[in-house]
């Protein structure tokens, strides 16, 4: 009898205890702890270097120096801004927009709708953007032009390709940069700079289709045996694929030139119908070439996204079994995503190699595969403008930091930015509508935020 009584007395208070969430465990403060941890880590990594005489030198100097407060101030500042100032700022912005629209006499928020409805307006905007993209770089410093061409544009091409694989078809590929290496080595081979002789030496322009084809084939070869896997398993296999390509490039001396790689790879050149031109070390001509290919790829891919193929990819991403039940050949479309995604790496590989003039295995570390993935996720999986912006920001940031901070710390800042982004804007800078929906559904508990996973109880 007494035991029953105590349990009855205990239950309500125990339940109340369980119901109450301590303030420090509410979502807002959980985020604060994460941000403080990030600030500390940032301070430790970017602070004083350690030395061998005093093992605590680095830690004591970090914790007593001003750097700690700067880092903590930055991360906690972001937190405070996001948690407490977001609503008033948003309110002010929408109010300002409302009054501006009222002053202009148009309805609120009509710009976007008009933009979507009016095809001519849209084309005009694209044309202006294109002109800006072509004109603005000529006003930049030479070093920034080089960054723009060698890194931003090349990685943009790669990221657009990876976006097909991960953003549209939902296949997590951690070894995407390997296809870039395939494109680069194809260039070295077909221009006759590898120890093995090609059947014919090709002009760089002819290497592009050949390299694209090689990458397509590699995509299919990698995809065919591995696409039965999903999510994490597929990711690990693609990781392995990158390592295989890297190690083959490094160790197959007789074919790839081993650690020395290939040198003196010729530049692009045209000698056709009286026009004679050679792309040289100057960045701008390569910029125009890259813009041409990027625009071409964007046009092709966005058409693909809105075609039957794109719909099949979306269906596969959402639910493979349901996709198959509706008549989508899942294996074929997954292979296609892999191959098509890989093809842009072919183009990027050829242009990069021609511009650089030499390659060796160390140009293709695993880090690059991870970085491209970060660009795609940061910008917004599944959205082409997002992916471009993500690439531009994340490639630009380490370069811009070069003059300000210790060069070895640059990637720590990049990492910190990614962490903050994943806490406050997991959908990316310019997300696709679908990704936004997925995250929203997941928040409401009726969906799956994981871009690549399958609902429970998958196919046998």
């Amino acid at each position, binding site marked *: 009898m007494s035991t029953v009584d105590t349990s009855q007395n205990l239950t309500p208070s125990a339940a109340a205890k369980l119901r109450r969430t301590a303030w420090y465990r509410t979502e807002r403060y959980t985020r604060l702890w994460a941000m403080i941890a990030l600030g500390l880590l940032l301070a430790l990594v970017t602070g004083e270097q350690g030395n061998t005489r005093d093992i605590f030198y680095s830690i004591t100097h970090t914790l007593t120096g001003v750097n700690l407060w700067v880092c903590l101030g930055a991360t906690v500042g972001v937190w405070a801004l996001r948690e407490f100032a977001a609503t008033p700022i948003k309110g002010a912005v929408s109010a300002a927009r409302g009054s501006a629209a009222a002053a202009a006499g148009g309805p609120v928020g009509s710009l976007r709708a008009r933009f979507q409805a009016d095809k001519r307006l849209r084309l005009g905007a694209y044309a202006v953007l294109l002109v800006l993209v072509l004109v603005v770089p000529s006003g930049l410093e030479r070093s920034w032009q080089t960054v723009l061409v060698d890194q931003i544009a090349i990685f943009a091409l790669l990221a657009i390709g990876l976006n097909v694989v991960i953003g549209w078809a939902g296949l997590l590929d951690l070894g995407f940069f390997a296809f870039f290496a395939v494109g680069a080595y194809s260039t070295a081979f077909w221009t006759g700079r590898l120890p093995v002789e090609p059947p014919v030496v090709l002009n760089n322009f002819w290497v592009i289709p050949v390299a694209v084809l090689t990458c397509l084939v590699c995509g299919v070869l990698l995809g065919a045996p591995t696409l039965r896997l999903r999510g994490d398993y597929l990711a690990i296999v693609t990781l392995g694929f990158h390592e295989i390509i890297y190690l083959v490039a490094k160790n197959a001396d007789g074919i790839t030139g081993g650690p020395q790689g290939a040198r003196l790879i010729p530049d692009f050149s045209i000698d056709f119908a009286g026009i004679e031109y050679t792309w040289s070390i100057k960045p701008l001509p390569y910029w125009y070439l890259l813009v041409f290919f990027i625009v071409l790829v964007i046009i092709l891919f966005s058409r693909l996204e809105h075609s039957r193929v794109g719909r099949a990819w979306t269906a596969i991403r959402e*639910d493979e079994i349901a996709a198959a039940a509706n*008549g989508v*050949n899942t294996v074929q479309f997954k292979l296609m995503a892999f191959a098509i995604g890989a093809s842009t790496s072919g183009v990027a590989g050829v242009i990069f190699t021609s511009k650089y003039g030499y390659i060796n295995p160390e140009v293709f570390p695993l880090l690059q595969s991870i970085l491209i993935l970060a660009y795609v996720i940061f910008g917004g999986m599944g959205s082409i403008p997002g992916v471009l912006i993500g690439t531009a920001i994340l490639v630009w940031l380490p370069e811009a930091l070069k003059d300000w901070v210790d060069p070895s710390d640059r990637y720590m800042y990049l990492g910190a930015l990614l962490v903050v982004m994943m806490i406050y804007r997991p959908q990316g800078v310019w997300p696709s509508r679908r990704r936004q929906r997925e995250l929203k559904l997941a928040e409401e508990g009726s969906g799956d935020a994981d871009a690549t996973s399958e609902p429970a109880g998958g196919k046998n």
Partner: protein
Amino acid sequence: MSTTTELRKDTGTPDSAEETLLELCSMHVFYGAIEALKGIDLTVRKGEIVALLGGNGAGKTTTLRTISGMLQPRQGEVRYRGERIDGIKSHELVQFGIGHVPEGRRVFAAMTVRDNLEMGAYRFSSVDPADMDRVFTLFPRLAERRSQLAGTLSGGEQQMLAIGRALMGEPELLLLDEPSMGLAPLIVQQIFEIIEEINKQGTTVLLVEQNATQALGLANRGYVLETGSVAMSGPAAELLSDPRIREAYLGEGAA
């Protein structure tokens, strides 16, 4: 073929002369070393509703998955309009006019109702508005929610969407895997009425169900599976009045 005639004999319904649409001949299916189906014989004739009943683990879903090409029989045959179809992949079976509503609904959660339905018409190069209208007439609830995300629908609405999506592929044979799963009795009633309506409009239905009373009330004929083989089969009304069925599946044994 002999099995077919045998089955026709035991059903003894007047419409037994009608065309056979789907036929399973001594089908054995294995999961690794485990024999899940131990020689299933089953016939579905054009225009019928056939119910496939049985307890958990009896092999109902396995049978359906084998028909829809997700599993392959190790022995025996699946015939559709007289042609062997075992070994054909699920996405290709859609082209033959076999629609499949998988277990657990599996709607595309982040797509709108309309997009889900359009996905159902994937086998055609373009969506036929008449099909869309037909689905919206059958399921007015879906018409109201056509721009809503499928993931935000209730369980019953998701089931309706899953059925509607399969109808968009204009199937001749519709395979339904436990459409009543996890739904309130009233909704189940509604869904079963709609299945009857779909059948009246000319679609043959093979229905897998745990809910024996409801399913047999709807079906022309029924098969009862027990641990991987057909324990009983016959016209629905007969099965419904069979004491063994009542005992095993309608919970009247103890009474």
